[in-house]
C-alpha cells in the first residue's frame, strides 16, 4: 500500500463531512448538467422521432390550408406518375382525457416500397389493418408500457370525442423507441373515424429533383409543397432557444457546484499543509506531491461523477416530463416523452464534472505545493496572500465589464453572445463581493467599536472581525452563495416581469367579453366552430361584434410560423399594440389588399420591418407588413391576414371567436344561451377572465422547469455555504475550546457562530440584489429578446428583492446549526481537549 495515498484516503475518512461536501458539489453539479443535457437531448431526439414518424421517408410533403381532396392523389399518381402517399395525422389521448398523447398516422397500409416505407415496413399484416374496422398497430414499446395486449380494445380520446380502437398488432421490438407513442391505422378507417371521407391531411411524395417544379405546377391554389428535410430540421430545432436556456441554467448550477468544490478543496488542502510540508521534508518532490493531489482530485471527481450521473438520469426522467409539457405548450406537439441515454450526454456530464474538479483544484493545489516546503508556514501569511489575491482580482473587473460590452455591441451577436456577456458581468460582480464583505465588516466593526454599548456587543464585534479574518476560506463560499442568490433574484424578477407583461398583454388582447374555442382533448384537432352557432350568436341583440380566428402553419423564407386569418372588429383591434407606429395607420394598411400584421418574434427572426414586402409559400400574391405587434403567444412567430369570406365551403372554419357585447348586456346570460345551442357540446364557452386564468396557468407551467433549476442552484449554494462555514467552524474548534476556557458559555459561543453565519449570509444576500438586478436585465434584455424575440417590460418586485438577504441569512443560519450544536456537546472531545491544553502554547509558538 502506498503510504501517501493511504494517508490521503485516511484524511478524508477522518473528515467525512469534507468528503461529503466535495462529493456533494461534484454530484450536484454533474447531476444538473447531466439531467439537463439528457433532457435536452431527449427532447430533441423525440421531436426528431415524432417528425420521422410523421414524415416517413418522403422527400416532400403537400400541405394545404384545408383538407386535401384525394383526387389530387389520383392525379399525381395516375396522371403524373409521381410517387405519392395519402396521410392523415391526428393526436389522440389513450384512455382518459388526460391520458398519454399518441400520434396516429394513417396511411395506405398496402404500399410497402414507396414513400411510406419508414412506417409500413413493419406492417406485417396489412390485410387485417384494411379489413378490421378501427384497427391499429401500436408501438411495442408503448404497448408494453401501457400493458396493452394484441387484440385489446383501446379507448382513445380524439377531438370529436371518445372512440374505441382495436389493437391488432404491435410495431417493432419492445425497446424500439422509433415506435414510441405511435398508432398506425389504415387510411380508410381513419377517414371514417375522423369524418374525412375522400379527404387527406397531407400527401407524402418521393420526388426526384427534376420533378419538384412539375409537382408545384400541378398544385391547386391553397396547396403548397414543403421539403421534408426542411420540415424535419425546423421541427427538430423548434425548441432550441428554450433548451439553450436550460443548458445555460444548468451550467450556472455547475458553476455554483464547482465554486463549492473549489472552496472545500482549498480548505482541505490548506488543512493538510503541515502534512505536505512533512512529505516534502521526507523527500517527496513537488511534482510527486502535485501528482498525488491530482490523483486524489481525479478519484474524487470520478466517484462524484458516477453519483452525479446516476442521480442525473433519475432527475432527467422527471425534467423530461416538465420540459416536454413546456415544449407542447409553447411550440409544437411532441407526443414522445422517452428518455434517450446517449454516451455523449453522459460523457459530457462526466467531462464537466472531472474537468471542473481538476480545474477547480489546480490553483489551490499549486499554491499548497509551492507553500508546502516549510511545514510551519503561518496561517497569517496564507490569510495575507488570500487578501492579496482578492485585491488583485478586483483589477479584472473593468476588463470583464469591457469585454462584456464589446461582445454585446459586436454586430450580429446572438443568443450565445448574450449568455457569454452575462456570464462575464456576473463574474465581475462576484469578484467585487469579498471586497464588499470586508468593507461592510470593517465599517460595522468600526461602528461597534466606537459604540458606547461595546460591552454588550462584544460578541458581535468578535464575529464581525472573524468574518473578515476567515475570508481566505470563505470568499469562494460567499461568492457561491451570492451567485445562487443572484440567480434566484434574477430569475424571480424575470418571471415576475414576464408574468406582468403577459398579464397586461392578455388583458389587452382578450378584449372580448366571451370567447368560443373548439373543445378538444388533443392538440391540433382540425375541428372548427360550428358556423350555425356563430351565425346564431351574431344574430343576438346583445352581441355587438364577433372576431374570429383561423390558423394554419405557413412557411416563409424557410421559416415555419403560424398564419392567422382574422376577422377583427374595431373592438378587437384595441387589443393590439404596435412597435413604433401609429395604430390607425397600421390598421388602415391592414385593411387594404395584401396587408399583413407580423408579431414581434417573427419580425425579429426574419428581420422584418414595417412596409416590407414578403412572400408566403402557397400564396400567389405578396404581402406588405402593415405593422409589427407585441406578441408573447408563440415564439416561432405569427402573422395575421384579414379573414376572407369563406368562398370555399370546405375551408376550415374559425377555431376561435370572440364576442363583443353591448354595454350592459349580461355575459352570464349569453354564455348560458350559447351553451344551450345545438352544436355547442364541442365548443368551450368562456368569459375573458376564464381565458386569462387558463393562459396564465399554462404560463406557470412553462416556467416550472426554470423554477426547478433555480431551486437546484439554491440547493447547491446551500451546500456550498454549509461546507464553507463548516470548514471555518471546524477549524475553530480549538479556538472555541479557548473561549470555553476563558469562560464563554455555550450559548455565547453559539451566538458567536450564529452571528458570523448571519453576517456572511446577510452580506451575500445584499450583494445578490444588485447582481440579481443585473442578471434580470441580462435575461430580459439580452436573453429573452435574443432567444424568443419578444420584449418584456420590467417589473421589480421589492418583495422578491428582500427575499434574497433573507434566504441567504437563513441558509447561513442553517449552516451554523451543526457547529453551534456541537458547542452544547458537553466535554470537548479528546483530540481537541489535548489541543486545548497545548493550544495556548501552540498558538503562542505559531504567532511568534
Amino acid at each position, binding site marked *: 500500500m*502506498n*503510504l*501517501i495515498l*493511504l*494517508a*490521503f*484516503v*485516511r*484524511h478524508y*475518512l*477522518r473528515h467525512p463531512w469534507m468528503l461529503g461536501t466535495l462529493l456533494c458539489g461534484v454530484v450536484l453539479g454533474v447531476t444538473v448538467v447531466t439531467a439537463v443535457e439528457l433532457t435536452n437531448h431527449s427532447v430533441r431526439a423525440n421531436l426528431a422521432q415524432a417528425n420521422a414518424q410523421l414524415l416517413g421517408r418522403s422527400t416532400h410533403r403537400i400541405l394545404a390550408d384545408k383538407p386535401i381532396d384525394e383526387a389530387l392523389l389520383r392525379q399525381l399518381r395516375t396522371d403524373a406518375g409521381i410517387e405519392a402517399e395519402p396521410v392523415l395525422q391526428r393526436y389522440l389521448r389513450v384512455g382518459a382525457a388526460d391520458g398519454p398523447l399518441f400520434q396516429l398516422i394513417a396511411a395506405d397500409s398496402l404500399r410497402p416500397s414507396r414513400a411510406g416505407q419508414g412506417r409500413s415496413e413493419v406492417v406485417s399484416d396489412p390485410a387485417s389493418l384494411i379489413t378490421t374496422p378501427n384497427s391499429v398497430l401500436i408501438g411495442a414499446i408503448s404497448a408494453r408500457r401501457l400493458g396493452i395486449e394484441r387484440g385489446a380494445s383501446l379507448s382513445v380520446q380524439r377531438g370529436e370525442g371518445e372512440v374505441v380502437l382495436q389493437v391488432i398488432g404491435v410495431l417493432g421490438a419492445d425497446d424500439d423507441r422509433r415506435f414510441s407513442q405511435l398508432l398506425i391505422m389504415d387510411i380508410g378507417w381513419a377517414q371514417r373515424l375522423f369524418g374525412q371521407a375522400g379527404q387527406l391531411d397531407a400527401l407524402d411524395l418521393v420526388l426526384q429533383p427534376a420533378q419538384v417544379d412539375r409537382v408545384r405546377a400541378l398544385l391547386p391554389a391553397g396547396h403548397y409543397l414543403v421539403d421534408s428535410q426542411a420540415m424535419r430540421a425546423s421541427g427538430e430545432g423548434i425548441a432550441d432557444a428554450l433548451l439553450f436556456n436550460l443548458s445555460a441554467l444548468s451550467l450556472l448550477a455547475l458553476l455554483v457546484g464547482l465554486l463549492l468544490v473549489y472552496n472545500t478543496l482549498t480548505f482541505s488542502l490548506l488543512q493538510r499543509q*503541515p*502534512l505536505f*510540508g*512533512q*512529505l*516534502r*521534508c*521526507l*523527500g*517527496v*518532490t*513537488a*511534482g510527486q506531491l502535485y501528482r498525488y493531489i491530482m490523483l486524489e482530485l481525479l478519484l474524487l471527481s470520478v466517484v462524484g461523477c458516477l453519483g452525479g450521473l446516476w442521480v442525473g438520469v433519475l432527475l432527467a426522467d422527471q425534467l423530461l416530463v416538465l420540459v416536454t409539457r413546456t415544449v407542447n405548450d409553447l411550440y409544437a406537439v411532441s407526443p414522445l416523452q422517452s428518455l434517450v441515454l446517449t454516451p455523449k450526454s453522459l460523457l459530457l456530464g462526466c467531462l464537466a464534472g472531472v474537468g471542473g474538479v481538476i480545474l477547480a483544484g489546480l490553483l489551490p493545489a499549486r499554491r499548497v505545493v509551492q507553500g508546502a*516546503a*516549510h*511545514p*510551519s508556514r503561518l496561517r497569517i501569511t496564507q490569510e495575507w496572500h488570500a487578501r492579496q489575491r482578492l485585491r488583485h482580482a478586483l483589477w479584472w473587473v473593468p476588463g470583464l465589464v469591457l469585454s462584456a460590452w464589446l461582445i454585446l455591441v459586436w454586430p450580429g451577436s446572438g443568443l450565445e453572445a448574450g449568455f457569454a456577456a452575462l456570464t462575464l458581468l456576473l463574474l465581475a460582480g462576484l469578484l467585487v463581493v469579498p471586497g464588499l464583505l470586508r468593507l461592510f465588516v470593517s465599517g460595522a466593526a468600526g461602528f461597534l467599536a466606537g459604540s458606547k454599548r461595546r460591552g454588550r456587543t462584544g460578541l458581535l464585534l468578535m464575529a464581525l472581525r472573524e468574518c473578515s479574518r476567515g475570508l481566505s476560506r470563505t470568499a469562494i463560499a460567499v461568492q457561491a452563495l451570492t451567485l445562487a442568490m443572484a440567480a434566484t433574484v434574477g430569475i424571480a424578477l424575470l418571471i415576475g416581469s414576464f408574468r406582468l407583461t403577459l398579464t397586461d398583454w392578455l388583458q389587452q388582447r382578450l378584449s372580448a367579453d366571451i370567447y368560443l374555442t373548439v373543445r378538444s382533448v388533443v392538440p391540433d384537432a382540425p375541428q372548427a366552430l360550428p358556423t350555425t352557432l356563430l351565425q346564431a350568436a351574431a344574430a343576438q341583440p346583445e352581441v355587438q361584434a364577433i372576431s374570429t380566428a383561423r390558423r394554419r402553419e405557413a412557411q416563409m423564407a424557410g421559416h415555419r410560423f403560424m398564419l392567422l386569418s382574422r376577422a377583427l372588429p374595431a373592438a378587437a383591434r384595441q387589443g393590439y399594440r404596435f412597435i413604433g407606429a401609429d395604430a390607425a395607420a397600421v390598421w388602415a394598411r391592414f385593411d387594404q389588399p395584401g396587408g399583413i400584421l407580423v408579431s414581434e418574434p417573427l419580425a425579429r427572426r426574419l428581420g422584418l420591418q414595417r412596409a416590407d414586402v414578403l412572400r408566403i409559400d402557397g400564396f400567389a400574391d405578396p404581402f406588405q407588413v402593415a405593422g409589427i405587434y407585441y406578441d408573447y403567444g408563440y415564439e416561432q412567430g405569427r402573422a395575421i391576414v384579414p379573414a376572407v369570406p369563406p368562398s370555399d365551403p370546405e375551408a376550415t372554419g374559425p377555431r376561435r371567436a370572440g364576442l363583443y357585447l353591448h354595454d350592459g348586456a349580461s355575459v352570464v346570460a349569453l354564455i348560458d344561451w350559447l351553451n344551450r345551442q345545438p352544436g355547442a357540446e364541442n365548443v368551450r364557452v368562456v368569459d375573458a377572465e376564464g381565458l386569462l386564468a387558463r393562459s396564465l396557468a399554462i404560463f406557470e407551467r412553462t416556467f416550472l422547469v426554470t423554477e426547478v433549476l433555480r431551486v437546484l442552484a439554491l440547493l447547491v449554494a446551500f451546500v456550498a455555504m454549509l461546507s464553507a462555514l463548516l470548514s471555518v467552524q471546524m477549524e475553530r474548534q480549538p479556538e472555541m475550546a479557548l473561549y470555553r476556557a476563558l469562560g464563554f458559555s455555550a450559548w455565547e459561543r453559539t451566538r458567536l457562530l450564529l452571528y458570523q453565519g448571519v453576517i456572511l449570509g446577510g452580506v451575500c444576500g445584499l450583494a445578490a440584489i444588485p447582481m440579481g438586478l443585473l442578471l434580470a436585465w441580462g435575461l430580459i434584455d439580452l436573453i429573452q429578446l435574443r432567444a424568443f424575440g419578444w420584449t418584456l417590460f420590467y417589473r421589480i418586485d421589492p418583495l422578491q428583492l428582500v427575499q434574497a438577504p433573507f434566504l441567504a441569512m437563513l441558509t447561513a443560519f442553517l449552516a451554523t446549526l451543526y457547529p453551534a450544536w456541537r458547542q452544547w456537546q458537553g466535554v470537548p472531545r479528546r*483530540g481537541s481537549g*489535548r489541543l486545548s491544553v*497545548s493550544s495556548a*502554547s*501552540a498558538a503562542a*509558538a505559531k504567532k*511568534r
Partner: protein
Amino acid sequence: MSSTVVMSAPALIRLSAVSKGFLSGGQVQPVLQTIDLQLHPGEVTVLLGPSGCGKSTLLSLIAGLEWPDSGTVELLGEPFSTLSDAQQTRIRRRSLGIIFQFFNLVPTLTVAENLHLPQQLNGLAFNARHIDRLLQSLGVLHTREHFPEQLSGGEQQRVAIARALIHQPAIVLADEPTGSLDEASAEVVNELLFDQARQQGSTLLLVTHNPALARRADRVLQLHQGRLVQQGRLVQQGRLAADDNGAT
C-alpha cells in the same frame, strides 16, 4: 571513533557566506549574515540562540526548505543550494532526517506506517524488525499500531526521532524537538536523540534555546544577531582544531 578519521573526511555540510533576509513591512530584515559553517560526519552539534535569532532559518537553509539570498550551501559535497528542487528532494530523501517541534508525524498514518514512509520513499521494503528495534530502543514499541494523536507529546517526539533515523540518514536536523514538552519528557527525548544519532554515526545538528543541552554536544554554536558565534565548551582537541582549520 577516532578524530583523525573525522578530520580526514570532507565536511558533510558546508555553508559559505550564507545570508538570508525576510521581507517585512516593505523592508528586508536580515536574519542571517554571512554565515560560514562546516559540519563533519558523526559530529553532534548544538546550535544555541534566543527565540527569533534565525536558528530555524539556518536549519531550513541546510535542509533546502529555504533558499539563501547569497552564499552557498553544500551538502555531501553537492552544491545543494544551486540544485533543482527535485535534486534537492532526492538528497533530502536519502540523506536527511528532520525533526521539528510540531507536525512531525503524518496524522493519518500509524506509528509503524509513519516509520515505513521514509523506507518506502527510498524504495526499501517494509522492514518490521528494523522498525521494531528502533521503536524498542526509543521505548515506544507499544505505540506501534497507534495513530500519532493517541500518543503523548513525548511519545510523538520519540517516534519522530525514530522516523528521522529509520533510513539511517547521514545528517539529522532537529529544530527544538522538545520545545513543547515538559522538562522530564524533554530530558528523556533529548537523551534518546543524542544516543541514537551517535549509535548510527549520523551527523546531528540540534537547534535549541536550551543551553543545558550544550553539554552533550561535540560542538556548540551560538547565533547572535544573525551571526555565528562559536562556543568551545567540552572541547575535544581534534575537533576544535578541525574547526579552526575550516575557519581559516
